[in-house]
Each structure stands twice: as C-alpha cells, then as structure tokens.
C-alpha cells in the first residue's frame, strides 16, 4: 500500500500552523482556560481544598443574591453606584465632542497644538498617579485648600477625598480630566474629514460660526459620536476597578464601590468569598454580552454597520 502523498502546499499550510501553535496555546491558556473557573460558582469551594462531587451546590450562590437580605442590599447598593457612574458618563459623553469642536475653532495653530498636547497628557498616566496627584493637590495642606483658605473662602480645610459627597460626579471629573483630551482626538480627525467646500459655501451664504458648527460640523461627526455612545452602553456594567480601587476609602466606600470593585473586594476580603464573587462575575458577563449584542445590533440598524 502506498502512503498518500501530501502536496507541498498542504505541507506548508500545516507547517505554518505549527509556527503559530505555541501562541494559540498561550491564548487558550490565558483567555479560554480561565472560563473553566466558572465551575467554582457552583461549588462550596474553600481553597486550598479542591472541588469534588460532594462540594457541588448547584445554584446556591446565585440564589443567595436574592435570598440573603444582606447580600441583596449589597448588590443593590453596588448596582446603584455602577448605574450612577456609568449613567453620568453616558449623560456627559458629548463633552469630548464639544471639546474637539471648539478646539478646532481656535485659529492660532501653536495655541491649539499646545492645548491639545497638554490635555492629552493625563491619558498616559496611571490611575495610581492620578490618585497621587489628587491626594497632593486636594489634601488639607494641598494647593486647593491653601488657596481657598488664603482667599478666605473657607475657615478650615475641606476633606475632598475623604468624603462621599458628590463622589459620583467627582469620579466623573477625574475620568474626564484623564480621558477627554484623548477622546477628542478622534473627533478632531473626523472634523478634518469634513468637506471644506461645504463650509465655504455656508460662509458665502452668510452662516455664522455657530451656524456652521450646528448645521455642518455636528451632523458630520455624529456617526463617530454614535459609536462612542454604543460602546459606552456595551460597557455599562464594566467601569473597571482601578480608578475606584485607588480612590476608595472608609468614608466613600458605600458610594464608590462599583460592580467590578465589589467582586474584587469580596474575593480578597478576609472571608474570601470565591464562589459568590465568581457567580456575580458570571451574571455580569452574561448581561454584558447581551448589552454588546444589543448595542451592536442597534448600530447595524441605524448606521448600517456594527462595531464588532
């Protein structure tokens, strides 16, 4: 019997697959394998004891969320914070767009360049550094309190960081301080793409600058804005934990703990609630996937193309 000959082309195709196989294995190991960890949500898992058939508890942890009043209250509180902060972000998501539009109105090029450069810088520093800056500038001997005391606006220093007052809005401010300049670049690119002739024609017809902005610039960059809103919507439950982790303290804990941070804090607390924390992240993932599909479909319906 003769062995079936493998054509050189086929041979090459397998060889090339072998070349990427190690990398595929890494992807499988770091991104796909952890999904197996979801089984912990269905077990009475207490590390370091391994899970066995006896530890299987079914949906016990998922039901705790609704059956245990303390847990339910916790989850509702965390959801409130998540919704509040994502909601504020969504509500003000037009800010980078407006920032870009008026930045583009600046005719003095060096000034425009300067503003763009310095407002983009904060995007490239970590949340730890942002927190450090917040701490140094807003502490009781920091610049803000010192200046306000010197001006006689306040009698004693305000504890900006160690309070829960307006914390949702403050978190939005820090997020905006860090990201707005960077987010504006995308809109600036979109504005550059607008047909000059359209603007010239409008000007000849006697349109004011505000009219040009309102009737030409904004409609032209609205599709970009729409994508951003949809992405915001898809990430509604995922604010990430880093920002809130560094800014959290005993004073603002009740209002700053978002879903991602709650999952982390629960897992790393002294009681180490691995299964419950995993159960919550599973629920979160499911809702997030649904949100992603919904916003992608909405994008397809309205714009004719999705963003996935």
């Amino acid at each position, binding site marked *: 019997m003769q062995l079936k000959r493998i054509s050189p*082309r086929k041979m*090459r*195709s397998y060889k*090339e697959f072998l*070349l*990427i196989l190690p990398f*595929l294995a*890494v*992807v499988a*190991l*770091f*991104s*796909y*394998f952890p*999904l197996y*960890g*979801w089984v*912990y949500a269905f077990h009475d898992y207490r590390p370091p004891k391994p899970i066995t058939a006896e530890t299987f508890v079914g949906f016990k942890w998922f039901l705790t969320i609704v059956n245990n009043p303390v847990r339910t209250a916790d989850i509702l509180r965390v959801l409130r914070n998540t919704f509040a902060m994502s909601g504020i972000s969504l509500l003000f998501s037009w800010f980078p767009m407006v920032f870009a539009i*008026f*930045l583009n*109105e*600046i*005719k003095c090029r060096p000034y425009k360049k300067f*503003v763009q*450069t310095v*407002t*983009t*810088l*904060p995007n*490239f520093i*970590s949340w*730890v*550094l942002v*927190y*450090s*800056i917040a*701490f*140094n*500038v807003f502490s009781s*001997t920091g*610049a803000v309190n010192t*200046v306000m005391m010197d001006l006689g606006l306040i009698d004693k220093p305000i504890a900006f960081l160690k309070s829960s007052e307006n914390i949702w809005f403050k978190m939005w401010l820090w997020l905006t*301080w860090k990201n707005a*300049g960077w987010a504006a670049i*995308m809109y600036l*690119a979109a504005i550059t793409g607008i047909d000059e002739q359209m603007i010239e024609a409008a000007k000849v017809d006697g349109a*004011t600058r*505000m009219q040009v902005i309102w009737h030409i610039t904004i409609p032209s960059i609205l599709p970009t804005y729409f*994508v951003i809103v949809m992405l*915001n919507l898809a*990430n509604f439950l995922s604010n990430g934990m*880093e920002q809130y*982790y*560094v800014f959290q303290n005993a004073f603002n804990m009740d209002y700053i703990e978002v879903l991602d941070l709650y999952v982390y804090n629960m897992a790393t607390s002294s009681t180490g609630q*691995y299964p419950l*924390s*995993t159960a919550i*992240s*599973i629920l979160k*993932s499911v809702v997030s996937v649904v949100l992603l599909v919904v916003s992608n479909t909405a994008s397809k319906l309205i714009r004719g193309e999705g963003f996935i």
Partner: protein
Amino acid sequence: MTEKAILNQAVKNRRRGIKRSFSDKLISVITYIVYAIFAFVCVYPFYYIFINSISANNLSERGKVIFYPMEVHLKNYSSVFKIPGLMDAAVISVLRTVVGTLFTVLVAAFLGYMFTRKTLWKRKFWYRFVAATMYFNAGVIPWYLTMKMMGLTNNFWGYIFPMMIQPFYIILCKTFCESVPEALQEAADIDGAGTLTIFFRIMLPVIKPILATIAVFAAVNQWNSFQDTLLLVTKDELYTLQYVLYRYISQASSLKSLVSNSTNSAQLAASLAHAATATSIRMTVTIVVVLPVILIYPFFQRFFTSGIMIGAVKG
C-alpha cells in the same frame, strides 16, 4: 427678484456680516479663555508637585509652595532612592516595560503577519479564535486561580505572559500587512523563501511604522500597569513603582515609619528644610514615576492618529 430687492438683500447681508464678526469674536475670546483654563487644569498639578519636590521640605509640608519653588534643593531626589525597596521597584518597572514591550510587539508582528498568509491552515478560524478574546473575560477569581496554577504568582513572568498577546495590536498589524503589496511576498515565495524568512527579511522591515506605534502604547501600558501587581504579587522584590507609590499614599503609617527611620539615622544632622517628610517623599516619588512618561511624550505624539485606532477598538 427686482433690482431693489437684490440691493436690500445685499445690505441685509452686510449688516449681518458686521453682527457676525462681533459674535464670532466674542466666541473666539471665550473659547481662548476656556481652553486656557483646561490647559491650566491639566498642567498645574504636575507643576505643583514638581515645585514642591524641589522646595524646602518644611515649607512644602505646610502647603506654602503654590506658585513657584522656594529655597530650591535637590536633596529629595537623592534621599528618595535610598528608601529601601524603591530602587528595586524602579528596576522591576523598567525591566517589565522593556521585556514586556519587546514580547508584545514581536508577537503582534508575527501573528499579524501569519494571519495574512493565505496558506495557513484554518486561517480564518484561528484568527477569530484570537480576536474573540477581546470581548470576554472570565473574571478576577478564575483568572487568578489560573495564574496560580501556572506558577505565575509572585513571578516576574506574570507581568509579561498575560499581556503578551493583545488582539488589538494583532489586528492592527494584520491590517497593515494587508496594505503591503502582495507581489512582495509572492516574489519571495517563488524564490523559495520560507515563511519565517519572508517574515524576518521582508515583512518586518516593511511594517516598522505600525510596530513603533504599538511599541509606544504597549510600553506605556506596561509602565502604568498596577492591577497585576495587586492581584499576583506579595513579594516585596517584585513590586513595581506604581504599586510602591500607591502604598506610600494609601498607607500613611508605613510612610511615617520610613520618615522616622531616616530622621533617626543619617538625616538627624540635616536641617529641617532638607529632612524627608511624608509629603516630600510622596511628591518626589510621584515625579519619579511620572517622569518617564512625560519625557517620551513628545516623541509618541506623532503616533496619536494611528493610536486612536487602538483606542477605538478598545472602547
């Protein structure tokens, strides 16, 4: 339209023109002022911390340094590196940035190129296999347990491997490779060059521009990374600068003991203006951590436009 009507319209336009220039000027002035405020808000915090780090420590401690440095000295910068652990953290931060960026960029280049090879077995499927990982993650606990199982907790490679394969970067590279004329690869194919030879000899030099962009963003990501230290590392010698800085701010007690230690020994003789305080250490370390980013910032500004694509994919 009669001649008179046309004339009237012209006059109206003229008037409107005058009005327009006034309102336009007003908008201009307001715009300039508002953006000056934005710029100030973004620059001043860095400036404030910097002037405090070089001013007399007894003044900065009481919040006296607001607009310009007072009694300038650089002692803080020499003393901060004598703090036990800080130099080690700096070494780890630099190492992970260099090694991590190298790995991430090479992998992105190679996979980006391989996913354009039409001969690759089940090319589309494997591409989706990698790209899909952008849209889900298993959660903190399963991820941590996986890392622990692989021995990557308290391990330097725990900083490198999980961040090595980034779908966004691979997609960027793939798109860039696709824009390279196919004839280039075909010619090499005909000449009998192997897959790897084509990659190293032909594609790698051609796709350098996109690799530069990716390198910059990967490096900033590595330098700024904080969460992985928080989750994976408990050994002091693997702490990064970001993590050490966070501890200095969040655990005032540890900073106080540091300060009293240093005052007890060598610094006792130093004047009040130069003795380390909690504030001086905090501010100086902040500048040390932020400086590399600010220094390379002018160079990577030109990568912004291609970088925004990364941001767009990431959301």
